[in-house]
């Protein structure tokens, strides 16, 4: 019975019914070599569901109304730094000019994690996020595509994209929007690939993570785009919040069958 209901729910999701949490799409698992990897470091991803859009201001307002301990006046300092929800004028209202349907930013990892848990979901791992994000409109792995990489690098240089509404970038091969072009996104294990901050050292030393393709092939655009994401993640701590950093949730495929 539950299974049936859930199936219906998913069906509804596919036709863009917003009633039943935020929309998710299925990402078919596979094996790929991430930036830091070599052939021996292939990563296998199981099938999972991913939010179509990043979590919006509006959705997060609803969340803190139900979970007051995540409101900016009540949040524990251990779980969010001083810039948490910086662009909100009160616990539940946004500053004028901030779009309701723009991604919520100035969110700590703890807050993002709590939000996803509350929805029965979780934050994606770096490997899952990078796997879903290597797709462009037409192919699941567009990392060697020049225009795709130029698009990403172009965004890195574009200021103030955090207030653009969700869905304003392209829909990728899996049906996911805004992985590139709006905001950075939290991952569950954001600091597991260590960039020491001294990136040249990461390249030179014996670190398995960076002596492979990451270092030698660093001249190609694909790696440059990814390097910047890994560098950004490496600069974070779980209580940090940033104006250009939001999040989205994912769910294991198995969970749907429970």
């Amino acid at each position: 019975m539950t299974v049936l209901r859930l199936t219906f729910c998913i069906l509804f999701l596919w036709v863009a019914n917003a009633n039943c949490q935020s929309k998710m799409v299925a990402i078919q698992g596979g094996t790929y070599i991430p930036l830091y990897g070599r052939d021996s470091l292939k990563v296998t991803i199981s099938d999972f569901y991913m939010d179509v859009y990043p979590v919006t201001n509006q959705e997060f307002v609803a969340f803190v109304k139900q979970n007051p301990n995540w409101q900016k006046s009540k949040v524990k300092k251990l779980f969010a730094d001083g810039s948490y929800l910086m662009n909100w004028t009160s616990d539940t209202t946004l500053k004028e000019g901030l779009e309701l349907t723009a991604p919520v930013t100035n969110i700590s990892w703890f807050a993002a994690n709590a939000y996803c848990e509350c929805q029965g979901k979780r934050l994606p791992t770096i490997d899952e996020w990078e796997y879903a994000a290597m797709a462009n409109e037409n192919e699941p792995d567009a990392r060697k595509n020049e225009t795709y990489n130029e698009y990403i690098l172009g965004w890195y240089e574009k200021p103030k994209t955090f207030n653009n509404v969700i869905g304003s970038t392209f829909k990728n091969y899996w049906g996911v929007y805004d992985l590139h072009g709006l905001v950075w996104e939290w991952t569950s294990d954001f600091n597991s690939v260590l960039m020491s901050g001294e990136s040249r050292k990461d390249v030179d030393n014996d670190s398995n993570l960076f002596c492979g393709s990451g270092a030698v092939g660093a001249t190609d655009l694909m790696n440059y785009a990814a390097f910047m994401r890994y560098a950004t993640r490496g600069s974070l701590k779980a209580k940090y919040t940033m104006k250009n950093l939001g999040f989205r949730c994912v769910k294991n495929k198995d969970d749907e069958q429970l």
Partner: protein
Amino acid sequence: MRKPKNGLAVLYLMAIGAIGLQSCIDNTTKKEYASAADIPVSREMTAELTAPPNVPRGVGDRKAKKLIVNMEILEQEGTMTDGTTYNYWTFGGSVPGSFIRTRVGDEVEFTLSNHPDNKLPHNIDLHAVTGPGGGATSSFVAPGHEKKFNFKTINEGLYVYHCATAPVGMHVANGMYGLILVEPEGGLPRVDKEYYIMQGDFYTQGENGDPGLQAFDMQKAVDEDADYVVFNGSVGALTGDNAITANVGETVRLYVGNGGPNLVSSFHVIGEIFDKVMVEGGSSINENVQTTLIPAGGAAIVEFRVDVPGTFILVDHSIFRAFNKGALGMLKVQGEENKTIYSGVVQEGIYNPEGGGIQVMPNGDEDTDISSGTKTLAEKMESGKQIYTKTCFACHQANGEGIPNAFPPLAESDYLNADVNRAIDIVLNGKTGEITVNGQKYNSVMTKQAISSDEVADVLTYIYNSWGNNKTNVTRSQVEQVKNGH
């Protein structure tokens, strides 16, 4: 960018302080320390930071202190050249970043703040730091956060600092570099004028001069194929109204750095000889130098006394970079001429290597008619083009487009087309001072051209009949008239 000076009160306080210190020093024997690391610090002070081309006040004979440096990182759009903008990543809002001035033995407390609007994490590697990564490891900071670290300045000299976050080349190529000076005890010798200049190469999606916001081009950067090579972050940062200045008789000291990321600079000041160069920013002093090599990620201190007035052009003597990619600045010197040092043109004559002594100088109007009057337009165009290539091309460029902020365009030039006699006069007698061409102001120098009346007529005819100008056919007699009018 510059912090306002706090007026006389501060000066008085400093003077009193200085006297106090002086008496202290007089009463005690001066201590020698085995190593700069042993120099103790007294008190705390906040470092004055300046945007280029300015430098902070010298350390003088102040003691080593705990020096507080607060540096903010800003990612912001700025002007590369007229009509072209670029997203610069900056230390302190300028390219190059703020100048930091310290003395040996200072203990620097460095706070690096990454503005919340920024997209990327950054850090800083100061070549003046003795320690892993030059501070990079300790300063890696996310947007909206700050990091603090301390270091002691042990080695004197002029050092580059830069961002070292992956991808390092891109951070540097976007303007994340600057200079930090570590003065010896007692400071560098006093000079009259000090300036801060730093070269950098830029790689844009479009070609040099393409309008609009130009994105960084990674492939060109990897290929080391620069679209812009500039001093102080943009074309024209040191020309026209932005030129640096000095008076005759003054000694000028330039702190010159090279941020790269790729190109090495052959730094040269046209019409000056460096009396002193602190080679590579270190302690070795070379004298009487024409051009000094500044490596990427390196610096040099050059000093020279200016003896005669005029405009002196600063260039990277890899000369196409200067005239075609922007590596050109100006030093304007005012004061009395000194004809012994530089006379200007004393005499003009005709040089004929085939035995000019035997030949008779042309005189009278007959020759005029024969040489110029009978020339067809096509002949004048051909001769004019050759003269242009030899004489005018270097400044006004192949298609008369000129160089923004330095040399006015001759193509579709309102100034040129308005008055042919004025144009003839400028070729004959040169031109100095401000003019407006096609809405842009130029304040530069054109020397008088030592070419014959025929050649003036031909080259002007060529210019007037090219690049959308009004097709005036300039004759030798017109040139003669202007000549005789003077």
